[in-house]
C-alpha cells in the first residue's frame, strides 16, 4: 500500500460554476464566475442563505452559509441566482463519466468531489491529472482542482491549497513544507470547537499538532484526538470505495416560510417530516434506533432532544409519535422557524427483536407499504393525510433530490 497514488477531484465553486456554464450555453453574455455573484436560496421563503459564491464575490468577504441579506450589504451589485439541483446532478454525473476513463476505482465523495485511485496505472500521474483537468474543462466547461497524494487525506488536503484550475501534490516528504505551516483549522476533521481546544494548549498550526507527543494527545482528547494527530502526520489508509458509503443516519429538516406559533401546527410539521423520513428508511430497508428532534426559534437559537427506542422503527406513525413527545418535552412555547428530525443507529429491517413493552402492529407496517407503493406509482401527493388540507403546510417535507442522492459525508473519508 506504500506506493498508492490517489487523486482528489474538487469542482471549483461547484454550484456557481455549473449555473454559469448552463447560462452561457443558453446564450447569456455574462459569465457568473467573472462577476460578484452567488447561488442563493429563496429569500421570500426564508431559505435565503449563500450556497455558493464566485471568486469576485469572495473578495467582498462573502462566505458560504451566510444570509443573502448580509451578502448584499457587503456587495450591493451582487447577482443572486436560485439553485437548480437536477442541473447539478447532470453536471456531476458527466464529470464522473470522464473520470471513469482514467481509473475504474472512483469514490463519489459528494456531489462535487470524488476520489480516484491511480495506483499502478503506468502513466505518469502528473500528465494524467493534467489531461483529466483539461478534458473536464474542454468538454464540460467548468474547472476543477486536483490534489494528488499517497492517500485520500493528503489528496484532499492538496486539492484545497490554491484555486481555481490547479493541480497540487502532497506526498509524505512534502508534508513539512506544504502542510505544517497551515493553521490547524485547515486540517480535515478539525472544526471550530476542536480548534479552540487545541489553541488553548498552544497548538496553532498543523505542524504544532504533528509534533505533539502521540500519548499526550491520546490522554487529553482520547480517540478523536489520535485521529487528528494521525491526519496531521499524513497517516490515513482507507481504500477508494466504489459506490456510496452506507448511511449512518437519515434525517430531514425544514425552514418554515412563516413562524410556527401553535402546538397543533408544530405537530403537523413534525408529521410531514416523519412522512419523508419513514419513506426514506423503508426505501433503504432500514430501521432507526434513536430519534432526535431539533428546533430553532425565531431568535435563531436552536436546541434538541433525543431518545433511544426499545425497538428500532421505520413506521411513520411511530416516528411521529416519538417526535411529538420529544417536542412537547422541550418546547418552551416561543415562535419556531426551523424543525428537524434525525434517525440514527440504523439497522437492517430483515428481522428484529420485538419487545413486550411496546406494541407491534403488523397492520401499520402493511399500511405504510401500501401508501409508499401508491405514492411511488401516482406521485408523492396522491395520498395525503386530511389534517394537511387547507393547513398551509406541505404534507411531506424535506430534502432536495441532489443532496439526498449524494449526501455530504464530511466526516467519513
Amino acid at each position, binding site marked *: 500500500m506504500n506506493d498508492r497514488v490517489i487523486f482528489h477531484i474538487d469542482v471549483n465553486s461547484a454550484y456557481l460554476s455549473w449555473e454559469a*456554464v448552463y447560462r*452561457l*450555453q443558453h446564450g447569456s453574455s455574462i459569465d457568473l464566475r467573472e462577476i460578484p455573484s452567488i447561488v442563493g436560496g429563496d429569500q421570500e421563503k426564508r431559505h435565503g442563505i449563500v450556497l455558493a459564491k464566485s471568486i469576485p464575490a469572495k473578495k467582498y468577504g462573502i462566505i458560504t452559509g451566510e444570509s443573502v441579506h448580509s451578502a448584499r450589504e457587503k456587495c450591493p451589485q451582487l447577482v443572486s441566482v436560485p439553485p437548480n439541483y437536477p442541473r447539478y446532478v447532470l*453536471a456531476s454525473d*458527466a*464529470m464522473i463519466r470522464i473520470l471513469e476513463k482514467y481509473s475504474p476505482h472512483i469514490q463519489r465523495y459528494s456531489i462535487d468531489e470524488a476520489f480516484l485511485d491511480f495506483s499502478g496505472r503506468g502513466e505518469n500521474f502528473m500528465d494524467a491529472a493534467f489531461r483529466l483537468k483539461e478534458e473536464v474543462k474542454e*468538454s464540460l*466547461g*467548468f474547472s476543477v482542482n486536483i490534489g494528488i497524494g499517497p492517500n485520500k487525506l493528503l489528496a484532499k488536503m492538496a486539492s484545497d491549497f490554491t484555486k481555481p484550475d490547479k493541480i497540487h501534490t502532497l506526498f509524505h516528504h512534502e508534508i513539512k513544507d506544504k502542510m505544517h505551516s497551515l493553521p490547524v483549522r485547515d486540517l480535515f476533521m478539525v472544526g471550530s470547537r476542536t480548534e479552540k481546544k487545541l489553541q488553548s494548549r498552544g497548538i496553532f498550526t498543523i505542524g504544532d499538532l504533528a509534533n505533539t507527543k502521540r500519548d499526550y494527545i491520546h490522554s487529553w482528547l482520547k480517540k478523536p484526538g489520535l485521529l487528528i494527530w494521525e491526519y496531521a502526520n499524513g497517516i490515513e489508509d482507507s481504500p477508494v470505495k466504489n459506490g456510496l458509503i452506507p448511511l449512518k443516519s437519515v434525517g430531514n429538516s425544514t425552514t418554515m416560510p412563516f413562524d410556527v406559533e401553535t402546538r397543533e401546527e408544530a405537530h403537523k410539521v413534525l408529521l410531514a417530516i416523519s412522512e419523508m423520513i419513514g419513506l426514506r428508511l423503508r426505501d433503504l430497508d432500514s430501521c432507526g434506533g434513536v430519534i432526535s428532534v431539533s428546533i430553532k426559534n425565531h431568535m435563531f437559537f436552536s436546541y434538541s432532544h433525543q431518545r433511544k427506542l426499545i425497538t428500532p422503527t421505520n413506521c411513520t406513525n411511530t416516528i411521529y409519535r416519538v417526535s411529538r413527545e420529544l417536542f412537547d418535552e422541550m418546547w418552551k412555547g416561543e415562535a419556531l422557524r426551523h424543525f428537524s428530525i434525525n434517525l440514527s443507529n440504523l439497522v437492517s429491517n430483515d428481522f428484529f427483536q420485538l419487545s413486550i413493552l411496546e406494541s407491534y402492529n403488523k397492520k401499520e407496517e402493511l399500511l405504510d407499504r401500501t401508501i409508499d407503493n401508491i405514492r411511488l406509482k401516482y406521485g408523492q401527493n396522491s395520498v395525503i393525510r386530511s389534517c394537511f388540507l387547507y393547513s398551509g403546510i406541505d404534507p411531506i417535507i424535506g430534502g432536495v433530490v441532489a443532496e439526498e442522492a449524494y449526501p455530504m459525508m464530511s466526516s467519513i473519508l
Partner: protein
Amino acid sequence: MKQIEMIAWFKSDTYPIPLRFRIEGEDKSKIVVKIDKVLFQEEEKLGGNRMVIYRCEGIIQGLQKLFELKYEISTCKWFLFKL
C-alpha cells in the same frame, strides 16, 4: 438566444437536420427562414447538458446570412443562438 419553431428531418443515422424555422420579430410578425445549407454541426455537453450546435446559411429578409442554431436533446427545443 431565442427559442424558435422548427421543422427538422430526423434521419436514422445522424443528428436531426434543421430545414425551416419560424421566429417572432419584435413587432410580433412571424418570419420564416429556410436553411439552405448546414456548414457544420457539433455536439457539446457543457455542464453535462447535451446540445447540438449547427452553423447554417440561409436567407433572412432578403439577405444571405450565417447563423447558429442549437438543439437541446433533453428538452427537444430549438434555439437561434447567434445571428
